[in-house]
């Protein structure tokens, strides 16, 4: 079993189709939704984690691609610039998934991209703008 976090970007009018239902029913995947959003232009964004065998995840994603849904692997979303970061810790208390943690021996702030659910709560809290969302 693997887990894969992705951001799905739906085209206009694509929002109402039952994609998650298909992923569960037809591809036997566990689907965990972190965040969903419909933009004013009626396109949609869905942050999800897929859990299943590698093969089934691949097939599920292929199906989404055919439906013209843009798939962005989420691990690449939130980047912290190690050079500009001062390790102040202003972002630490905001992270709901423990992706940002303080090393309390070195007093350095660690970013674990694998744990990041791209909720963006930390992004505007960084005083030196070291955290960026990369789409």
């Amino acid at each position: 079993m693997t887990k894969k976090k992705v951001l799905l970007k739906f085209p206009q009018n694509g929002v109402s189709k039952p994609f998650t239902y298909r992923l569960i029913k037809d591809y036997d995947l566990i689907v965990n939704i972190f965040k969903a959003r419909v933009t004013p232009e009626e396109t949609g964004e869905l942050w999800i984690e897929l859990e299943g065998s590698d093969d089934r995840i691949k097939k599920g994603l292929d199906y989404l691609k055919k439906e013209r849904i843009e798939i962005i692997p989420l691990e690449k979303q939130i980047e912290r610039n190690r050079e500009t970061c001062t390790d102040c810790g202003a972002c630490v208390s905001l992270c709901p998934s423990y992706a940002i943690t303080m090393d309390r021996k070195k007093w350095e702030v660690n970013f674990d991209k694998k744990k990041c659910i791209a909720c963006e709560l930390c992004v505007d809290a960084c005083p030196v703008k070291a955290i960026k969302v990369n789409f």
Partner: protein
Amino acid sequence: MPKTYEEINERIRKGEAVVLTAEEIIDAVGKDGLEKTAKEVDVVTTATFGPMCSSGAMLNTGHSNPKMKMQKAWLNEVNAYAGIAAVDLYVGASELQQNDPANSRYPGEFNYGGGHVIEDLIARKDVLLKATSYGTDCYPRKELESWINLEDLNEAVLVNPRNGYQNYNVAVNQSDKTIYTYMGKLLPKLGNANYCSAGQLSPLLNDPLYRTIGIGTRIFIGGAQGYVYWNGTQHDPTVARNKNGVPMGGAGTLAVVGDMKQMSPEFIRGVSMTGYGVSLAVGLGIPIPILDEEILKFVSVKDSDILAPIVDYSHDYPNAINNALGMVSYEELKSGKIQVNGKELPTGSLSSYRKAREIAAELKKQVSKGDFLLQEPIQNLPLDTKFKSLKMREGKND
């Protein structure tokens, strides 16, 4: 046997001084006791690195030809104060760019401001100076636009009318929406807690009664050697203190000054507080001479001995309601979690403890090598003043 400044400086000059950081001294005293350690250790270094809005740069650009008495001026589109001598300028850390939308698009991003101008100058980046004036017989020029660089300025002095806050509030948010404050982003319903002090490493927490830190004290500021020139604004020494003399809330402050040309961007950073504004993070380090056992006892203060009040920034703080939701130690704050009203809150910090440590270690190195001598204060900081609120009144009294 008490030591004198001169004796300690003599040992520093010879490269014989024993110097420890305010963290290291805790273990030393724990191991060897006060008496023995007071004899052995000469200097303890303290430090902090956090945003301090009360900062600015006093610059002298030199004269253009023809000459000009600048009346209005901008540095990289940030308003600079020109209501002083002809080519003197003051740029405040929290000043915004002319066209910054501020919080009209809430929460404002405040991407660039006075703090960043100061950082850019120190990083030896060119900065665009624009100025206008009305013209006089002696200073006829009315408009000026030129790139300037720190190297070419006559003087560039960092002034911090308030720095090194002795203890501070822990900020929380009891409302049901996220708020953006100078204490950072605070999540609703007690979602997190932010503090801003280096605790046991912080200068004034190691000299709670200002025995060695006073007017004239030589300090490390932004990488340069500078001085304490006065007590800081809002200096409030008469707040409640615990039995060790440590204030239980924001108390003493320092006004400090240093030459920007000797500073490094490593220790000076422009910062943007979303929804609040621009500021400047300043690295400050102060060596404390171990003149006697009492001073040693003060510098061996631990995070667990320093308590800070937990304050609601959604309602109580803005409405000047003096109401602490509880007291918490820096040991608890630094553990990552505190309890408020029976709820567990994750903690975050605005001042970098990693940077504070770096500065304390750097200062230790400089003192040990004989590059940094101690300066005895020429006047002590007041111990009896009180920080007042503004009494608003409509009628003129005189």
